[in-house]
């Protein structure tokens, strides 16, 4: 009984491996088509020689040229770059400090702070956006690029802290002690030993924040002034008055920029010789 029961098993397994998982492959293909076809269309029509958004007539760079002659769009691009840069610097400095504090501070206060820190990650962005708007209005602050920066920094600190926290926790406390043992003050130990050890994670989170803020629409929409507007907001406003192929060109360039930055964020830990660049996502 037991002998006959065991013999057919390897055969069945062999047959199973020969059959192709048609359903799984079909689902995967549909998924990727639905995900990337619209984006592919945007990229394709950004090179269209005609204004049509449905018929591709021929290759040209005229919409890119149009973008670089559009002073409003260029102003928005400049503002978006400025906001992203400031938000990146601000949130990295504060986020790293928060990560160090959360890991090193032993006590109930630290664990509460750690929980509160996670709240922005799960709060719907629209809630954060409306709340920021109400706050600025309530305080009588004029909306401009400064208010966008403040909102974006507040929102981004959590990301930096989440990425950095497990890195800080993984540091060997004896290394900082060794620096002090060798004559470094507490501050020198932080600057000369701890921060260099965290540098790959710091750079990766900086690039990530830059990309996230540059692409961000919701928070920027609620906290920006009228002129200039961040690029994403500007594009949205433009679309309301009919879609210009220039938008396709802008979208394609933003896509290229984002891919470059995210790729950089993933590659940085590898460049520093750490294994597993993807650990940026898990924070491990």
């Amino acid at each position: 009984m037991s002998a006959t029961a065991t013999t057919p098993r390897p055969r069945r397994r062999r047959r199973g491996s020969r059959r192709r998982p048609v359903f799984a492959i079909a689902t995967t293909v549909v998924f990727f088509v639905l995900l990337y076809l619209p984006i592919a269309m945007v990229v394709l029509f950004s090179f269209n020689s005609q204004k049509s958004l449905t018929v591709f007539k021929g290759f040209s760079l005229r919409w890119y040229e149009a973008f670089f002659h559009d002073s409003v769009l260029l102003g928005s691009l400049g503002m978006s770059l400025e906001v992203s840069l400031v938000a990146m610097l601000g949130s990295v400095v504060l986020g790293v400090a928060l990560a160090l504090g959360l890991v090193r501070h032993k006590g109930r206060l630290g664990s509460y702070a750690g929980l509160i820190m996670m709240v922005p990650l799960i709060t719907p962005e629209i809630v954060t956006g409306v709340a920021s708007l109400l706050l600025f209005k309530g305080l009588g602050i004029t909306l401009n690029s400064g208010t966008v920066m403040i909102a974006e920094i507040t929102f981004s600190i959590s990301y930096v802290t989440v990425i950095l926290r497990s890195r800080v926790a993984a540091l060997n406390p004896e290394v900082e002690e060794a620096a002090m043992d060798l004559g470094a003050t507490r501050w020198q130990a932080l600057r000369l030993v701890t921060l260099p050890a965290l540098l790959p994670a710091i750079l990766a989170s900086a690039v990530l924040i830059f990309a996230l803020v540059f692409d961000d629409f919701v928070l920027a929409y609620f906290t920006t002034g009228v002129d200039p507007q961040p690029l994403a907001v500007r594009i949205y406003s433009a679309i309301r008055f009919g879609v210009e192929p220039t938008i396709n060109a802008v979208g394609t360039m933003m896509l290229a920029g984002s891919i470059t930055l995210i790729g950089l964020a993933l590659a940085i830990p590898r460049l520093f010789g750490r294994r597993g660049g993807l650990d940026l996502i898990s924070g491990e």
Partner: protein
Amino acid sequence: MTQTPVVPDAPAVPAVRLEHISKEFNGSHAVRDLCLDIAPGEFFSLLGPSGCGKTTTLRMIGGFADPTDGAVLLSGEDVTALPPNKRNVNTVFQSYALFDHLSVADNIGFGLRRKGVPKAEIRERVGAMVDLVQLGGMAERKPRTLSGGQRQRVALARALVNRPAVLLLDEPLAALDLKLRRQMQVELKQIQREVGITFVFVTHDQDEALTMSDRVAVMNGGRVEQCGTPEDVYERPESRFVAAFMGTSNLVSGVYRDGAVQLDGGPSLPVGTRPGIADGSTVDVSIRPEKIWLSDFEPGMPVVGGVIRETVYSGPTTTYLIELAPGVTVAALEQNTARARMEDRWEGGERVEIGYDPEHCLVLGR
């Protein structure tokens, strides 16, 4: 000034003096009322099981833990309130704690750069140190690319290059495999003799402490149980704990009377007259397995009969477990020297006689 233990032939100013230091963590004492003098140039070991307070003591000398009570003096100067970077001591950490983003040379030069030593001198001293710890050709490599033993040497060089008055070593060899550990023990001792710096060495390995140290402090429960030369603590343990912790020891109990101990239901063991012990009191007798003779007894030596219960061959030595009385067994160790022949070994069940020198017996009252 409070009273501190007197070290024989110690110079007037000890390199390290611990005056009644205590350390409490959440109400429990890791170290309690500990006094120690460590002479300049000494290789001093703090030995004990984990949790005995040896690492805490070392951290208090280094400035990484503040004593709850008492004072730490380095070369006569009270440094209790000073942070680690203001103390003329350096530490070799158990994890080595190397700076992974710096090269071997930059790791070693870290302390000198902090002190603002001129660049040329740093290069020269780092080079000399690289040679001393035999890391030639590795100066530009990153610590991560080195083996455990090499990383250990970097940690040692990084501390020694600063020429501290005292070098603190926290179980520096614990992570190495046995063979490398033996080799590093010898090397560490040679380096210590060469540089003449006071070493305070924390270990839980009694062999390591005995091999390397000028003096050993055996710690237990936050106190020093006994402090002395390796011979002192091994041959003349002053407490049951030290006797048991320093290698294997036979411990049998009985009643002391007129210079002999009557074992429960067994023979009487002459141990010599012990002035401190009252007749009729219950005592423990401790004797090392290698101090028990199985043949060629010397004249006048006490001899007791027993039965071989077990023969354990372990390369250079053979251990016999000998039953002196029901439930009273002692271990005896014989060297498997060139003269000892395999066929002369005793087998289980054979009757034998054991002899010993009463001087080697430690009699501990209860």
